[in-house]
Each structure stands twice: as structure tokens, then as C-alpha cells.
């Protein structure tokens, strides 16, 4: 006690000084409590109310995020005793996360299957708000403790969301697989963290980075790889991707949309934050993480895209494709430079937008004609032209064909990697680019499968379902419009990144 007495006031000043930089998160915490209380007071009839509260609250948080843009003009801020870091890229990641989360929260009640959940979905709002708080922490964490805590927070929330429809077998099965895989990964990660702490005597990333060169490189590599497993579990890159198809398929569709986008963005933000751990000087004798990540990226792209070709369930196919996209985004990470970072942000944002659109349409078709498999999409294109055209646009964007924003996203990543390649002439970057181009072609095969079934295959039954999910349709139209618009004017976003 006496050792710390002199520091207490300084520490407290630090804490109070940090609060202005922490406003969105404080709002989120309050929002969490408000939603929770609304849920408790109004019980099962509170779905609408919870939704309204959660969405308005999130808009407020978004507003606070935007205010933070002004705060970072004078440089980076380390807050709460080196727990969190607020910097330019973090703020943008947070804005993207909140925007997408807002769409996703709206989306929850639009899926008939999830809406029909007998226990009501107001708890889902509580859980997802807590999860968004975790995502915020993840995007800012620069301390092993905050990293671990944030990952766990998001993970626990995700387990709950996946298993949420407890009345269906598939949802619980997905939940079981997810929780076992996730808990095991986080245990492995914690072991790695404990070793890192042991090797450096600190849980602060910057202090660790300074200490690590004094330790045996192989040991350090081992600890780092174990930490990477925990992050990789959230990012779902090879070999931590095995859970993805099962979980995405089993989870309720809006939850799949949630899982496949925002945690991924936050995890990339986290990976960027902890990147200093993986950068070593040239005479480093341990594992070269640049090469390791490149190899992982290549294998992930191949595994995801090639396996997707053979899928018939739409959600499962999108799951594999999201693995492929992770591999592609990793490509931007391994450039280790600013341009790579901004292209990564852009790519992730547009990927997430398109993926939400695709899953919203999957929800839409599941609502109106109970179609889960590509086979069931036969001939729907003419009966539901608007939705089908949107689907095509969204898939074109996911593939990365021009005029849509997916193309510019891929182009930025490629150009970032290429400029890095021109400096380093690393064969791995070249291999990444080649794999990226190749798998983009491969992805055409499975993405085009959906339009193929929608428009070119004939179907016998001609009836048109009367009940329609207009909300989802509007969402899809807005998203596809955005995708095209941003594709034509890429600078409108890019100049801020």
C-alpha cells in the first residue's frame, strides 16, 4: 500500500483525464443498462421498445464517435493507464462498427424465424449492446488485459447470440460448437498471454515489445503464435476457421450477418493494434510473422473460396466466402504500412456492407419462400425482380467486379500490396497478390451460382407469396444503391481514411 500511495493521485488524474476520450463507450454502457431495464420492466412485450431504445441509443453513440474525430486531431491518446489507445484509425473503425451495428440491430426483427422465437428477442438487444461495447474495447485495446477482456466480451456475447434460438436444434448445435471452440481458443490464448507476461514482466504492449528481444526467439514466437490463435479465432483465418461454416449456418440469419461483419472488423482493428508485437528487426531468429501471416492469408483465401464453390446452402456458402475475404484482408495487414491500413478499413467496410446485404436477402427469401438452399432459388428472379437484381449487385460487389464498390475495395488492397511489393520485393507479397487474383476468379463461380438459379433456371410452381418483407427489401435496395454509388465515387469515403 505504501509503495503505491505516492502514485494514487496521479493515477486518478489519469483516469479522470481519460473520460472525455471514452464518451461513446460510457454512452454504450448506459445504453446497455437502459435496454436491460426496459427489457426487465416490460418483459416479453418490450421487443419494439427495446429496439427503439437500442437504435436511438446507438445513433447517439455514433454521434459521440463522430465528435471523437475532433479529439484525435492533436495526435494519439493513450487512456486509462495504457489500457486503451485512441487514434485516427480506431475512430474510423468505431464509426464503421456502429453504423453497421445500427443496420444489424434494425435487421433483427425483420427475420421471421428469429422474430418467431417464443422467448422474445428483447434479450438479444441487451446482449448485442454489450457486444458492441466489447467491439469498441477491442478496437482500442493495447494492453494484454484489455485485449483479452475485449475478446472474451465479444465472444461470450456471440455464443449467446448464436445459441439464442434455443428451441431449434441447429442453433444450439452451432452454439455448442462455437462455445467449445471459442473457449478452447481463448484458453490457448491466455496461456500464450501468460508466457508473454512471463517473458517481459508487463502486460503493456509497448513494454513487452521492448523486452522481447532479450528472450529466446523461439519461445517468444511460441507465445505469440498462441496469442495469434485467440485473435485468429475472432478473425476466423486458417486454421481457426473450422467453426465458421457450421456456426454461420446454424445461427439465426441476422446473427450470422452480425458475426460475419462487425466482430471481424473489430478483430482486424485489434490485430492492427497488437501489430507491434509481431514486427521484429531483420536479425530476428524466431518465426517471421510477416511470412506466417502471408502464408495464412494465402491458405485462408484458397480454403475459403475453393470450398465455397461446392456449397449449396446459401448461408454456408457465404460463410466460406467470408473466410476467403478474411484472407484477402490479411493481405492488406501484412503490408504493415499506412496505405495498407486505410485500404484495409475501406475493404472491410465495403465487404461488411455487401455481406449484410447478401444475408438480408437470404433472410428475405427465407421469409417469403422458405428458401435456404440455392436450389430453392430457382426461377425466383422473375417473381421478385427487385430483390433479385439487388442480390446480383451485392454479389457483384462481393466478387469485386467494376462499378461496384467491391471492385474499388479490392483495387485499393491490391495497390497497397503492390506498392509494398515495390519496396520490399518480397516473394510472399507477390504470391499473395496472385492468390488474391486467382481466388477472385474462383469466387465468381460460386457467387454467380445465385443469379444463375435466380434467373436462368426455370421452376414449376408459379405462385407468388403475398406476404412480403418490405423492410428487408428496402434495406437491400439501399445497400445495393450505396454499393454502386460508392463504386462510382470511391473518393467520397476514401479521402477521410
Amino acid at each position, binding site marked *: 500500500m505504501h*509503495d*503505491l500511495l505516492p502514485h494514487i493521485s496521479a493515477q486518478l488524474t489519469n483516469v479522470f483525464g481519460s473520460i472525455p476520450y471514452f464518451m461513446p463507450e460510457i454512452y454504450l454502457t448506459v445504453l446497455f443498462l437502459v435496454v436491460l431495464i426496459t427489457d426487465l420492466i416490460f418483459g416479453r412485450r418490450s421487443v419494439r421498445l427495446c429496439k427503439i431504445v437500442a437504435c436511438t441509443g446507438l445513433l447517439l453513440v455514433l454521434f459521440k464517435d463522430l465528435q471523437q474525430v475532433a479529439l484525435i486531431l492533436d495526435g494519439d491518446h493513450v487512456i486509462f493507464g495504457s489500457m486503451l489507445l485512441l487514434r485516427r484509425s480506431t475512430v474510423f473503425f468505431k464509426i464503421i462498427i456502429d453504423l453497421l451495428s445500427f443496420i444489424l440491430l434494425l435487421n433483427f426483427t425483420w427475420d421471421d424465424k428469429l422474430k418467431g422465437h417464443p422467448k422474445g428477442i428483447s434479450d438479444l438487444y441487451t446482449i448485442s449492446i454489450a457486444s458492441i461495447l466489447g467491439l469498441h474495447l477491442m478496437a482500442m485495446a493495447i494492453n*494484454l*488485459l484489455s485485449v*483479452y*477482456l475485449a475478446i*472474451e466480451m465479444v*465472444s*461470450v456475447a456471440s*455464443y*449467446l447470440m448464436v*445459441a439464442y434460438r*434455443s428451441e*431449434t*436444434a*441447429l442453433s*444450439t*448445435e*452451432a*452454439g*455448442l*460448437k462455437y*462455445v*467449445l471452440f471459442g*473457449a*478452447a481458443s*481463448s*484458453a*490457448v490464448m*491466455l*496461456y500464450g*498471454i*501468460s*508466457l508473454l*507476461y*512471463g517473458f517481459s*514482466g*508487463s*502486460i503493456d504492449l509497448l513494454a513487452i515489445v521492448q523486452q522481447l528481444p532479450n528472450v529466446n526467439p523461439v519461445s517468444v514466437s511460441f507465445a505469440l503464435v498462441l496469442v495469434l490463435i485467440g485473435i485468429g479465432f475472432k478473425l476466423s483465418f486458417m486454421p481457426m476457421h473450422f467453426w465458421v*461454416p*457450421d*456456426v454461420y*449456418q*446454424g445461427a439465426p440469419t441476422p446473427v450470422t450477418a452480425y458475426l460475419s461483419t462487425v466482430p471481424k472488423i473489430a478483430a482486424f482493428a485489434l490485430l492492427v493494434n497488437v501489430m507491434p508485437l509481431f514486427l521484429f528487426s531483420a536479425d530476428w531468429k524466431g518465426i517471421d510473422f510477416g511470412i506466417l501471416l502471408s502464408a495464412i492469408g494465402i491458405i485462408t483465401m484458397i480454403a475459403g473460396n475453393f*470450398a465455397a464453390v*461446392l*456449397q449449396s446452402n446459401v448461408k*454456408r456458402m457465404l460463410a466460406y466466402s467470408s473466410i476467403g475475404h478474411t484472407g484477402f484482408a490479411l493481405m492488406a495487414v501484412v503490408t504493415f504500412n499506412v496505405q495498407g491500413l486505410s485500404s484495409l478499413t475501406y475493404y472491410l467496410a465495403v465487404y461488411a456492407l455487401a455481406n449484410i446485404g447478401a444475408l438480408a436477402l437470404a433472410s428475405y427469401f427465407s421469409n417469403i419462400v422458405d428458401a435456404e438452399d440455392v436450389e430453392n432459388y430457382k426461377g425466383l428472379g422473375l417473381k421478385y425482380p427487385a430483390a433479385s437484381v439487388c442480390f446480383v449487385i451485392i454479389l457483384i460487389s462481393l466478387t469485386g467486379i467494376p462499378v461496384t464498390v467491391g471492385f474499388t475495395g479490392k483495387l485499393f488492397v491490391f495497390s497497397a500490396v503492390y506498392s509494398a511489393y515495390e519496396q520490399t520485393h518480397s516473394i510472399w507479397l507477390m504470391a499473395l497478390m496472385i492468390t488474391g487474383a486467382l481466388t477472385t476468379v474462383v469466387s465468381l463461380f460460386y457467387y454467380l451460382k445465385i443469379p444463375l438459379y435466380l434467373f436462368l433456371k426455370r421452376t414449376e410452381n408459379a405462385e407468388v407469396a403475398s406476404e412480403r418483407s418490405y423492410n428487408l427489401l428496402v434495406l437491400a435496395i439501399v445497400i445495393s444503391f450505396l454499393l454502386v454509388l460508392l463504386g462510382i465515387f470511391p473518393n467520397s469515403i476514401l479521402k477521410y481514411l
Partner: protein
Amino acid sequence: MITLTDFLLVGALLFCTGMYMIVSKRNSIQVLIGIELMLNAAILNLVAFGKYDKLNNGGQVFALFAIVLAAATTAVALAIILNVYRRYKTIDPDEIKNLRD
């Protein structure tokens, strides 16, 4: 004097026992116990090194957080396992494979 390496070795043994459990046990609850073992191995490491971090207590505080988080995860996992038992009448992870390629 008990060296740090001794603690680390004990931790390593526990970790590998836990790992054995998570890949081999035919019962989700035992898999969960395996995970707890792995967590405990990590906590042991943290505590052992924490001895040399008197001022910041990094290791010990981390250990506390890890214990609490383990409790939360376990609670969630058990809730899910119970639901799985209701639907499948088994909690053998190997038997629960409706979702597959």
C-alpha cells in the same frame, strides 16, 4: 528455492492434460473441465511470474480477471450444453454433427 521453471513445468503438464481432454473426451462437460485445466495452467504461470511484479500486480490481477471470465464463460457454456441435451438427448460433441459439409 523453487524456480520459475518449476512452476512453468507444472503449468505445461496441466495445459497438456487439458488439451488431451478437450480433444478426446466424449462428453461436453468434461471438455469444459479440460478447458478449465488449460486456463488454470495459464493462471499458474501468471501468478508465478507475478511474484516479481510487486508494484503493478499485473500477473495477479490478470489471474483474478481470468478466473472471473472463466466463470462467465462456463456459465454460458453450461446453459448451451443443457439446451443441446434437450434437443439431442446427448452431450457427446462427436454425435452432434447435423451441421457439416
